[in-house]
């Protein structure tokens, strides 16, 4: 049998000093989830520039079509590259903590759920830092 756990209202950030590792994991998972779903809508909007591009046109052949020029134009902006690093960090944390949550739901490793949260943070940090050279290539 499982028991429900009353977290109170998480939005009462005034009591943040009382938050445990599991509470922080829940808040970060929720925050990164909001960012990812918001990005999903933005991503589809940007990729919509592919609609109407004629695959056989000269513009596609020389890479000046609307889709290619939009994506490459965005990639020339340094702020976009930094936002991509941020997006990777958000996605990696959501994936790592998501794996942790699947194990929690299966009842596996409950006693070390705080340690697995810290591991999620460390792995997210390591993968994000390691990816920075790739993400910033060509603009710095």
């Amino acid at each position, binding site marked *: 049998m*499982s028991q429900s756990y009353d977290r109170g209202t998480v939005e009462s950030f005034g009591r943040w000093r009382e938050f445990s590792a599991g509470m922080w994991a829940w808040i970060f998972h929720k925050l990164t989830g909001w960012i990812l*779903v918001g990005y*999903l809508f933005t991503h589809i909007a940007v990729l*919509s520039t592919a609609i109407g591009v004629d695959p056989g046109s000269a513009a596609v052949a020389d890479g000046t079509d609307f889709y290619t020029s939009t994506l490459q134009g965005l990639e020339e902006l340094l702020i976009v590259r930094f936002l991509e690093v941020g997006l990777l960090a958000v996605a990696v944390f959501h994936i790592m903590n998501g794996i942790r949550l699947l194990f929690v739901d299966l009842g596996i490793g409950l006693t070390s759920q705080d340690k697995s949260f810290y591991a999620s943070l460390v792995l997210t940090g390591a993968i994000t830092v390691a990816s920075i050279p790739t*993400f910033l290539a*060509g603009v710095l």
Partner: protein
Amino acid sequence: MAEHYSSFNRGTWRWFLQRVTAVFLIGALAFHFVMLHFVNHAASITFAGTEARMGGILYFTLMMTFLVTAAFHGINGVYNALVNMGLKGTQKKAVAAILVVAGIALIVQGTRVAIAMSPMF
């Protein structure tokens, strides 16, 4: 006795689908990032390159499944977060309706994008 920390109502089809899509998305999102930022650098993406990738039935099917599962997982996640914050009654029904419409719109537009990118259509 084990406590579980899920904010979802266990035993519902949405609870189950949220986890099934999560398992798929772990692989799909990681693959998407590696494919479009490390194997192919985002700054080098062209319509011709995108079209070549989307011409493969396996890649196209993966991207379409990615779209639908991500839309469900995200929209359902937002709904659960709002319900968890205390959404009730008519407001809850209105938010559910808006989110369903937004999710369908996202999938329709994403499908239009996928078709525009693929030489199969």
